[in-house]
């Protein structure tokens, strides 16, 4: 037990070892990014990696893009401390992929070129729909980015023993600068390779730890659970309800969260954009299948790792450690394999943040350069190369914003920011994606009402929710200021149905009709793949 407390009071392991392993990861990926970037000439190369990845490669990259720090550190920590309720996140994050597989992936690949707005504005009025879609894309990416950058700050305090604010800010700046470099040089191709490498490392690392934990209990899951209960001193960690079963409000809150998780994934712009990096719709389907297997297996690991951390490290030690719940996975690694495994897992956690941040940045940059600059400002008449130049400059701006935002959000609740991004994506994007693919009558007014209505209602509800004000655990960190009129911390249960309703209402009230020829073209193209963007040849 003395070992536990040592681990909790100071940074466990060797900071220099951690830095060296992480440095090796950066060096190797940099070389790959440089090699991959030699053919980054056109917009299709820069945004969509020349559409040259295979389904398996893209599926791994999707897993790398999707399994963020919130998934790895957040869920393992949540299970270790709040027991079964943490695992509910895993299930929501996984089942959500069925929406992407069945409704969105292939049809989107067949009708779009680079961004989500390509599909949404296909048969509606270009200008207003593109602007709306670009705005929702940028907002979702921004909140997701903030969450990852804030997570990086928290992680550092634990892993490198940097506890002062200045040191953490410096590390956030380094992470941001590295991310800018990857995206600037590597474009989508470089970003994809970073995500593939990270996905392999993360799933392998989690797999090794899972087998290790199970082996310590003679591969008897039940005795692992018994041990977790014994250390935690609370048999309730095996049952649902420890966190969300407290009151009627918290129960509804959980249903709201569950809804946002399951409907958010298929509307996340950085996930949607990955479908453009493969040559055909069939490969897009294969990518989702790969992604579902990898992500599903990983989430099963989280169950073992979470209870493993509860049993071997103990919930109290985790809660007291710097980084609190987020430190459960690294502390478990230290418990199992000492400083070396801790160093490896920490490096993987950093790589996770880096890869996700790079994917978000290129999505946001593509959305600004392609949807706002090229299509709206220049009305589709850009000089060759100008769009990519604008995209690269946007990367720099987003990088700086992410660094500043990350420093500002340092110490904020990471899971809250990610759940917020999911809720906004599900409210602002999903209704319009579904309607424009499957509802013939859908019009521009419906799209605009649904997108802005979903976006604004989600954000307003969050502002007036308990996560922003009213308690010491809220963003404002005080009980003095309290404008939490809306009782739920996740707006999904209100804002998602509202956005679907607004899309229907706007369409029904719209006296104008959209071009029926465009509707025919979109439907035929989405199902047959006629005229779909092909892979570029070099």
């Amino acid at each position, binding site marked *: 037990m003395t070992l536990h407390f040592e681990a909790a009071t100071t940074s466990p392991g060797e900071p220099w070892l951690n830095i060296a392993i992480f440095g090796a990861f950066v060096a190797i990926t940099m070389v790959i990014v440089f090699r991959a970037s030699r053919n980054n000439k056109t917009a299709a190369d820069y945004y969509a990696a020349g559409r040259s990845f295979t389904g398996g490669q893209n599926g791994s990259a999707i897993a790398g893009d999707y399994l963020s720090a919130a998934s790895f550190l957040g869920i393992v920590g949540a299970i270790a401390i709040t027991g079964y309720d943490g695992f509910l996140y895993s299930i929501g994050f996984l089942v959500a992929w069925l929406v992407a*597989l069945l409704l969105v992936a292939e049809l989107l690949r067949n009708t779009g070129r680079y961004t989500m707005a390509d599909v949404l504005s296909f048969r509606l009025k270009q200008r207003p729909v593109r602007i709306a879609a670009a705005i929702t894309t940028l907002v979702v990416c921004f909140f997701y980015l903030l969450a990852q950058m804030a997570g990086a700050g928290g992680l550092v305090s634990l892993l490198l023993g940097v506890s002062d604010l200045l040191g953490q800010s410096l590390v956030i700046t380094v992470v941001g600068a590295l991310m800018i470099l990857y995206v600037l040089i590597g474009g989508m191709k470089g970003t994809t390779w970073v995500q593939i490498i990270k996905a392999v490392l993360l799933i392998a690392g989690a797999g090794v730890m899972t087998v290790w934990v199970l082996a310590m209990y003679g591969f008897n899951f039940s005795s692992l659970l018994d041990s977790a209960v014994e250390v935690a001193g609370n048999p309730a960690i095996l049952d649902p309800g420890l966190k969300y079963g407290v009151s009627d409000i918290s129960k509804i809150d959980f249903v709201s969260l569950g809804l946002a998780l399951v409907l958010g994934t298929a509307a996340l712009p950085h996930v949607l954009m990955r479908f453009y990096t493969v040559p055909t719709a069939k490969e897009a389907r294969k990518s989702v299948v790969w992604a579902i297997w990898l992500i599903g297996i990983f989430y099963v690991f989280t169950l073992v790792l979470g209870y493993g951390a509860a049993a071997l490290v103990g919930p109290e030690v985790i809660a007291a450690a710097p980084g609190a719940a987020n430190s459960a996975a690294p502390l478990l690694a230290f418990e199992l394999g000492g400083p070396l495994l801790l160093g490896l897992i920490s490096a993987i956690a950093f790589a996770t943040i880096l890869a996700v941040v790079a994917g978000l940045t290129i999505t946001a940059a593509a959305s600004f350069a392609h949807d706002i600059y090229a299509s709206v400002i220049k009305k589709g008449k850009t000089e060759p190369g100008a769009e990519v130049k604008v995209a690269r400059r946007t990367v720099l701006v987003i990088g700086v914003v992410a660094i500043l935002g990350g420093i500002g959000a340092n110490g904020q609740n990471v899971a809250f920011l990610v759940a917020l991004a999911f809720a906004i994506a599900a409210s602002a994007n999903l209704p319009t994606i579904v309607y424009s693919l499957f509802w013939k009558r859908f019009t521009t007014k419906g799209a605009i009402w649904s997108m802005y209505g979903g976006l604004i209602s989600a954000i307003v509800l969050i502002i007036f929710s308990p996560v922003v004000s009213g308690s010491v655990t809220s963003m404002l960190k005080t009980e003095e200021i309290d404008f939490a009129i809306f009782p739920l911390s996740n707006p999904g249960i209100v804002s998602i149905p509202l956005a679907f309703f607004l899309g229907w209402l706007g369409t029904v009230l719209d006296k104008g009709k959209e071009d029926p020829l465009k509707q025919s073209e979109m439907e035929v193209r989405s*199902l047959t793949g*006629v005229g779909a963007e092909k892979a570029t040849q070099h």
Partner: protein
Amino acid sequence: MGNDALSAEQATLERVDYPAVQASPEFQKLRRSHRSFVFPVLGACLVWYLAYVLLAVYAHDFMSTRVFGSVNVAMILGLAQVVTTFAVTMWYVSFANRKLDPVAENLREEIERGEFEKAGAAGTAAVDGAEETTR
């Protein structure tokens, strides 16, 4: 070089009579088989997921029932969600490979061969067809 082929193909595609394709029985069949798989299956999966979430929140005692050792109903149902997700994924892939892809490919070839050109543009179809094969 790639650009020439692309623009020739673009020209063929500009003359495609999409409403005619849309109205064709073959396309209607494709659309019907896609929707009649995707909607009910996804609906069932979402209902099953929501049932699981509601059980976890509102049926605490049932979910806490021990099944074997310390493994309870909640864990079994959670893993069952993972299993059904995998199963539906494989089911859809096999359905799409058997029922959707052949029809879609067939239609795509017909369209690219120029069989759905708008009236008055039929004369150039052969040239585009040749272009298509040399590419």
